[in-house]
Structure formats: structure tokens, C-alpha cells
């Protein structure tokens, strides 16, 4: 077993272990950062596979995304630090079964499938080929990504902003019905009052 194999095994184990920890830790902040660790481990595997750009880029993309994830976790989750232990799951058994089935099915594909198994050319520079591709054949992908991201940005601002163009985003909506210490109430009588954000009824 070579050194690379060893590091691959360690990183694979870290990625899977911390991915699993995400769903069994009480603290939301910990959960987000366990996910980040999982991503970082995958990024290291990518580096080992020779994807020098994607591996490193995964670090910065995911560091930002998980930071934001943690922010929103803490903003909107009750008991964000898991001071009281909790388990907020439904259809637990079914979900676990689905996960296991998916794992075995995909592994079977990996083991029994017939994939090319040759190392990539040693003189290949992954960053340069990617750049050429972006400016050449896949230019459409590139530019349409720009438009999609623009749409996302506008949608995000419109949905989350309080000071909407047409006044308060929640003007006319009723105060929420939450019993102190209880679960959030979402009874039907509150519907129809949410006139401020009808634009995301897709």
C-alpha cells in the first residue's frame, strides 16, 4: 500500500464518518462544520486524484457555504447548540433503509460496472484544459451559469429582504402562533395572510 493509498483511506474514512456525524450531533453548528470536514476530506481525495484545481476550489466554496449554513442554522433552529438533546427525524427507519440500499446499489455498480481504469495523461494540466474548455466548447455553459446565478441573486434578495420594493415583506401577515416552549404552530388559519411573499408559490 502506497502513501497515497493510506491518505486516501484516512480521508475517505473521515469524509464518511463526519458525514454520518452531521445527522447525529445535537449542535447545529457542529453539524455544519462536520459537513465542512466531510467536504474538506473529499477535497483532499480530489487532490490525490490529480484534480488540483477542483480539490482546492472545493475548500473555499464549501468553507463559505458551510459558514453561511451555520449562520442560518443558528438563526432559525430552536435550541441551535443542542443544549437539550433532541432528535428531529421522521420516517427514520425508511430513510435509513433507503440510504443503505442506495449505498449497496451504487457500490455494486462501482464494483461490477465496467469503467475505464487508466491514469490520466501525465502531461495534462487540469487548470489549463478547464480554462480552454470554458472559453471554447462549453462557453454556453459558462454564460448560462452567469444568467442562472443572476436569477438566483435576484430571487434571493427578493425573497429574503425585509425592505421589499413594495413595502414591508411581511406587511399584513399575522403574528405567528408559537406556544412558549412548544413546537411552531402552522395551522391553516394563517394562510392567505402571507400576501407579501406570494412570488415563490412554484
Amino acid at each position, binding site marked *: 500500500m502506497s502513501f497515497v*493509498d493510506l491518505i*486516501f483511506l484516512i480521508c475517505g474514512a473521515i*469524509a*464518511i464518518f463526519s*458525514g*454520518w456525524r*452531521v*445527522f447525529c450531533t445535537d449542535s447545529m453548528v457542529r*453539524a455544519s462544520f462536520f*459537513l465542512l470536514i*466531510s*467536504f474538506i476530506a*473529499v477535497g483532499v*481525495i480530489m487532490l490525490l*486524484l490529480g*484534480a488540483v*484545481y*477542483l480539490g482546492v476550489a472545493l475548500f473555499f*466554496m464549501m468553507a463559505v457555504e458551510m459558514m453561511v*449554513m451555520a449562520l*442560518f442554522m443558528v438563526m*432559525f*433552529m430552536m435550541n441551535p447548540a443542542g443544549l437539550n438533546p433532541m432528535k*428531529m*427525524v*421522521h*420516517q427514520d427507519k425508511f*430513510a*435509513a433503509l*433507503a*440510504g*443503505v440500499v*442506495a*449505498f449497496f446499489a451504487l*457500490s455494486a455498480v*462501482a*464494483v461490477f460496472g465496467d*469503467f*475505464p481504469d*487508466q491514469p*490520466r495523461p501525465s502531461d495534462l494540466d487540469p487548470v489549463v*484544459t*478547464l480554462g480552454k*474548455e470554458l472559453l471554447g466548447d*462549453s462557453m454556453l*455553459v459558462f454564460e448560462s*451559469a452567469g444568467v*442562472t*446565478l443572476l436569477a*438566483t441573486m435576484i*430571487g*434571493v434578495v427578493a425573497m429574503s429582504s425585509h425592505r421589499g420594493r413594495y413595502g414591508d415583506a*411581511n406587511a399584513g*401577515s399575522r403574528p*405567528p402562533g408559537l406556544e412558549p416552549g412548544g413546537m*411552531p404552530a*402552522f395551522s391553516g388559519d394563517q394562510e392567505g395572510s*402571507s400576501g407579501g411573499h406570494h412570488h*415563490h*408559490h412554484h
Partner: protein
Amino acid sequence: MSIITVQIVAAALIGIGLYGALSQQSFVMLMMGLELILNGVMLAAVGFWAYSGTGIPEGQLLTIVVMAVMAIEMALGFALVVAVYRGKQADMTEALEGFKH
């Protein structure tokens, strides 16, 4: 490290992610599950790219597209969480059902 081991790791990530996405009540935790699935997909894509023998850039491009999907999913997901919370002060997936008129 070979294509098979890499794909098995990816499969495990996808499996765990699927479990999370199906079981979690909270919308933000559900997104974590989705992220984990996409994490596995990205790893698989890079694995195929690395062992394809040609190093065609499409493999990398696929990974980037997955990342973009992830970013968009997260941004829109959180914006939705904010909007729902503003109206109902809830972050549960069930609360979203109120929006399915």
C-alpha cells in the same frame, strides 16, 4: 486508491446524504442531506475524470456544474427559509406544506 474504492466512498456519502434528506424534519438539516449527496456525486465525477485515461475537461466541468447547483440550491433554500420564517416562524419541512396551495 482505484476507481472502485473512490466510487465506494462516493456511494457511502450518497447513502448517508439520502438518509439525512429523507429523515430530517428541519428544512436546513434536509439541505445538509442534499449537500452530502452532491458531495458524493462530485467525488464520483472527479473519480471518473481521473481514471478516464484521457483527462477530458467535461469531467471537471460536471463537478463545477454540481457545485453551481449546490450553491443555487443553498442560496434559494435559505431565502425560502427566511421567507417562511417571516410568515410563520417555523423552519420545519411540514411548514412548507402551507405553501402548496
